[in-house]
């Protein structure tokens, strides 16, 4: 990561003796706290933001206790989008859960599909084919790009810049076209199956993705040029919402939030899945743990995803897409319609599902938001006893009160945006 070259003028007054960020009085000057002393509790004000508010990125509700314009306490209320995913999972076959995973973190559906499929495969002891592995890497990295694009777009709207939103959504539309080419759906892709993929990619898709990979950095550079050295952007993000490395680990942050605080932990590199260790990519790590560093980390991750996509396209091997075992994976539709044996397997899998052995598996993958864990417990039937999603943005959001304390109300919006929440996953 490049060293920052901008002098920090608008940072917070630092930490108070207890180690919390010092409160900024309305005059925003160091020393005001001593001059005026602790403000009266009676002058505090309660403000309710959300659940329907454009700056809360969904249906998050924040109850904010203010002293003047300084945030004394933030109390997030979540659960306004609780949809009972984990309960539904107990009533579904393993392959039937995959459409549910689309709808948890709907900004990166393909990565969720991959995360669930990997956990189910570990539970059943399935080894996937090389082509499938590379395609899943492509799916994950495409998801990372579209998710970070939404984050860039909406965060820049929150901080007052509308143009990057339009640029980011234009790039998303291009990825949506590719997803549509691959899966037939723009958003709810359901691209994986336990033991393989729902469909193979076409040559058109590969050509389209190659073209995307070549042209997409231009947009990134444009966004970079508009935001990274923009005085408003820098002023509103630097020194805001600081999490130190120890705090980040203690709060179980993950993904860009953790790395922006200076903890170099990336599931792709440190607990490799899908043969990520054979790809060449850098893990961007921040230094200050503020909103600006989170922005830099995410921006750099987009570049790195591009690099991985490029390598994956280079190495995309020929060969079978799905595993060969007809008891575990559906036969091609044409064979199911013409071949008696294939039809029986088809029927059995659709009606009875695939039975998993007794046991449990936890697989964490590096989702755009952080570590998406899938914890599956099986008692030997075709439906899991427990399907648990470790929701990265839920856990990241839990640190919001800590980060926002002592900042201005307008900074709260920037901090909340920097967490990159998606309520479908926070509430599940």
């Amino acid at each position, binding site marked *: 990561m490049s060293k920052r070259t901008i002098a920090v003028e608008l940072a917070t007054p630092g930490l108070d003796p207890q180690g919390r960020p010092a409160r900024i009085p309305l005059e925003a000057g160091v020393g005001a706290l001593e001059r005026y002393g602790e403000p009266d509790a009676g002058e505090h004000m309660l403000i309710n933001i959300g659940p329907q508010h454009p700056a809360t990125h969904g249906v998050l509700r924040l109850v904010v206790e203010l002293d003047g314009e300084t945030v004394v306490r933030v*109390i997030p209320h979540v659960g306004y989008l609780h949809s009972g995913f984990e*309960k539904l999972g107990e009533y579904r076959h393993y392959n039937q859960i995959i459409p549910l995973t689309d709808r948890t973190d709907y900004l990166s559906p393909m990565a969720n599909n991959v995360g669930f499929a990997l956990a189910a495969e570990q539970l059943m002891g399935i080894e996937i084919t090389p082509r499938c592995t590379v395609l899943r890497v492509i799916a994950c990295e495409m998801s990372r790009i579209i998710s970070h694009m939404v984050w860039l777009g909406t965060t820049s709207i929150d901080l007052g810049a509308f143009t990057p939103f339009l640029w980011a959504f234009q790039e998303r539309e291009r990825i949506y076209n590719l997803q549509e080419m691959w899966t037939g759906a723009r958003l709810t892709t359901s691209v994986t199956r336990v033991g393989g993929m729902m469909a193979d990619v076409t040559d058109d898709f590969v050509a389209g993705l190659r073209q995307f990979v070549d042209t997409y950095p231009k947009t990134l550079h444009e966004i970079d040029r508009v935001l990274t050295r923009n005085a408003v952007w820098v002023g509103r993000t630097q020194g805001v919402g600081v999490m130190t490395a120890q705090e980040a680990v203690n709060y179980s942050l993950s993904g860009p939030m953790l790395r922006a605080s200076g903890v170099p932990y990336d599931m792709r590199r440190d607990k490799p899945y899908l043969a990520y260790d054979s790809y060449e990519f850098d893990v961007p790590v921040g230094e200050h743990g503020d909103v600006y560093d989170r922005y830099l980390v995410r921006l750099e991750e987009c570049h790195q995803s591009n690099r991985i996509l490029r390598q994956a396209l280079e190495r995309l091997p020929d060969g079978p897409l799905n595993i060969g075992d007809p008891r575990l994976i559906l036969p091609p539709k044409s064979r199911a319609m013409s071949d008696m044996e294939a039809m029986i397997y088809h029927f059995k899998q659709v009606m009875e599902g695939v039975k998993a052995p007794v046991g449990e598996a936890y697989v964490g993958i590096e989702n755009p938001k952080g570590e998406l864990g899938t914890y599956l417990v099986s008692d030997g039937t075709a439906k899991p006893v427990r399907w648990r999603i470790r929701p990265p943005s839920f856990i990241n959001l839990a640190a919001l009160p800590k980060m926002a304390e002592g900042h201005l109300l307008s900074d709260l919006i920037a901090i909340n945006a920097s967490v990159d929440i998606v309520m479908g996953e926070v509430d599940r």
Partner: protein
Amino acid sequence: MNPSAEALRGTFAGAIGRAVESCGDTIVYVDRAALLDVMAWLRDTPGQQYDYLVDVTAVEYRDRERSLEVVYNLRSLERRTDLRVKVELDPRGDLAIDSVVPLWQGADWLEREVFDMFGVTFRGHPDLRRILMWETYAEGYPLRKDFPLRGRFSRAEQVRQALNANPEAHYSMEELSIAEAYDELPPDMRERLRRGERGKIPDSE
């Protein structure tokens, strides 16, 4: 098998139950009375350093004879190892367990979620309230196996209760530092706090 399991047995002996391996992960069963000590030991002992709490969740099995398990996924960021610690509770008995929030702040919301979904209470948790369902949710704990998929009440009753809920509720006096200054607040704000479902009014009122 993760060597931490043996090390735990060497240190805590009787408090450690069986250790099993499933899909490459080591699972250690811990007695609930010793949980906090075991966790602190795992976090702070050199050579263990499980400094990162990945997840807290619970599992109830379809087999009613099996106990409800509270599951802690631990990770050592430095050593790149994972360990799963489980505590067994009797689903028909007292579902209480020590909170690990003193060790990991990140456990705060996770434990609240387990409380919300399974009804496990965490002793020593700073703010144990429902998190995903609303405060006055009356139907029970959704992820328990005896909870029907569509809830216990009829749809009309669910809609009625939902529409009669106060969308401004959930200001909880306990979590506001404003509570101390209750008497000095302007009347409209006092009224709003009083209407909150959990708004416990100080004794003076």
